[in-house]
């Protein structure tokens, strides 16, 4: 690439990937609705959509990686990436805020309201507003569950994620010093910690469902518990996949000490997931 080219802002050619992405979402939505409404073959359509989506992501990201490797991203493009990744993470923060808001609202407002004055006397006699709860109706029907304590697996998971935040930073230092083995080792450890986290989380869910009576349907406690930890777990999964891609790209030698925004973006994302977990640990597991 000539110098002149890098002065200019990089403008990609027309691309088929976005419309393929739309097709994927179309299939996923149709399939998803069919699954939820118990219409035959919905699962296959959903899977097909997922397949197209993965195909699109691989295709699109490879194109971006090719553009990057060809040196088409100059400093200004790099700065665009930084802005956009920050705003994207901000949008994720707001997504989690909705669910933390639901936790706050039910815990501090609606559950206490259900157990006091007219609402309790007229509609839910004998309901005692405590947290955690499955709510007055389910409790009256004899529904029971055990809440999830903080000091078993969740505490270990906290440790794992906090450590992974350190290892990814250590990997970044390696990258900045052009120390490839430190980079690769740091990333590999981070991936390993992420995978362990997901495994433990899956075990915890299994335990909750089979032995504690703690399910999505366990009133607002169950709902907020699983939605918050579930969306977080999903983000860890996505983050781990992205880390694996970064690991492979590091092995392929894509990153230089100056030019490695993809790596930084993933580590920002990973730190964000980390912070969410700490909030979860405190608000969902600990303070019950």
């Amino acid at each position, binding site marked *: 690439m000539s110098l002149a080219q890098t002065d200019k802002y990089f403008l990609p050619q027309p691309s088929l990937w976005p419309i393929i992405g739309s097709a994927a979402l179309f299939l996923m939505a149709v399939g998803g609705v069919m699954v939820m409404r118990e219409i035959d073959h919905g699962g296959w359509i959903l899977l097909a959509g997922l397949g197209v989506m993965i195909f699109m992501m691989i295709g699109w990201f490879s194109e971006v990686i090719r553009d990057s490797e060809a040196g088409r991203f100059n400093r200004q493009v790099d700065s665009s990436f930084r802005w956009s990744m920050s705003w994207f993470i901000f949008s994720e923060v707001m997504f989690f805020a909705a669910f933390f808001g639901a936790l706050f609202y039910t815990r501090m407002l609606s559950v206490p*309201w259900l157990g006091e004055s*007219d*609402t309790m006397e*007229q509609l839910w006699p004998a309901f005692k507003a405590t947290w955690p709860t*499955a709510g*007055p*109706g*389910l409790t009256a029907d004899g529904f029971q569950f055990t809440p999830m304590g903080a000091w078993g697996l969740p505490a270990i998971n906290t440790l794992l994620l906090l450590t992974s935040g350190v290892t990814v930073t250590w990997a970044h230092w390696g990258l900045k010093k052009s120390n490839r083995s430190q980079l690769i080792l740091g990333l590999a450890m981070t991936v390993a910690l992420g995978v362990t986290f997901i495994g433990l989380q899956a075990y915890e869910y299994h335990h909750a469902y089979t032995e504690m009576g703690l*399910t999505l349907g366990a009133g607002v406690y169950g709902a907020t518990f699983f939605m918050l930890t579930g969306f977080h777990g999903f983000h860890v999964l996505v983050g781990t996949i992205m880390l694996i891609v970064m690991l492979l790209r590091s092995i392929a030698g894509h990153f230089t000490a100056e030019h490695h925004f993809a790596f930084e973006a993933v580590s920002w994302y990973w730190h964000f997931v980390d912070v969410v977990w700490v909030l979860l640990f405190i608000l969902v597991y600990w303070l019950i």
Partner: protein
Amino acid sequence: MKSMWKQAGVVGAAILAASQSALAEYGYNLQVPASKVAQDVFQLHNFIMLVCLGIFVVVFGAMFYSLLKHRKSVGHKAANFHENTTVELVWTVIPFIVLMGMAYPAAKVVIDMKDTSNPDMTIKITGYQWKWGYDYLNDDVSFYSTLSTPREQITGAAAKGEHYLLEVDEPMVVPIGKRVRLLITANDVLHAWWVPALGAKQDAIPGFIRDIWFKADKIGTFRGQCVELCGKDHGFMPIVVEVVSEEDYKAWVAKKKGGAQVAAADNTKTFDTAELISRGEKVYQANCAACHQANGMGLPGAFPAISGSAIATGPIDAHINIILNGKPGTAMAAFASQLSDADIAAVVTYQRNAWDNKMGDAAQPAAIASARGGAAEAAAPAAQ
């Protein structure tokens, strides 16, 4: 120049103020108030409106003056000023002061409206799809109130009456001059209870009680409607409140209690099938036809047909069960608390023998009573 516009505004506002209550009579303003709260709101609204009107006249007086005088076609040359900190500050501060002038009286009314303490009587009101239930907690009177406008008037087959859509079979009756506290809730979805002339509106929220109060200071009939979208017949669940004298109220309570005893006696009787069917048809038209339709065909995709339905032509216990307990997560509500044993027996019998359903069997009130005993168990699986 500016001050001239202001004067015009003041004069205009004064004329409008004088005619405000006249406007109400002609449907240009809030309804004529029949309680102190409604009166306060009425005045508050007039006040806010007039202030807004005043500002409007001043601002757009200036704008239209400019549109006339500062146009190119009359040869006006453009000036070039584009900021002036003093002016900008002034028109930030003045609106703020105006708003404080509005906020003060508004806050007083809010505080008064929300104070539900020391009631003379309490009525619990429950919204259902699509009727209202009233429980007089002090007088032990309970009843349902549904739209009484005949279907023919709605479809246009008959001329519409004076109180078209705003009339019910059983109005809510309250004595004049008493602080009435309303405990409002709902059974299925959100509704909202509103009688404009009394200045009382409250959303009905399933699972929660929210209270309001009013004190009617005029004898008369006041009409309102459900004002929260609650599904298909949201437009057809009116509210009628009759404010009567203390004696008339006592007489009404006595009459209501007599009626309730007769109805309770039915629950221990045994009926013959023809009786059940004709009674059941009435119950069906009043409670079920809104969804399942008078012809029993339902609305495909939304409400299933009863004619030919697997449940209405299957084991009678399952049929009774769905009516008592409804089906959670669908529009099919539990009717256990809404209908008496006799009514449920009747509607079951009717459904099993109407249209294409030729089951020939019947349910008696006693069977419903025993099914109710098991109702608590039957509801439990909904928990998972």
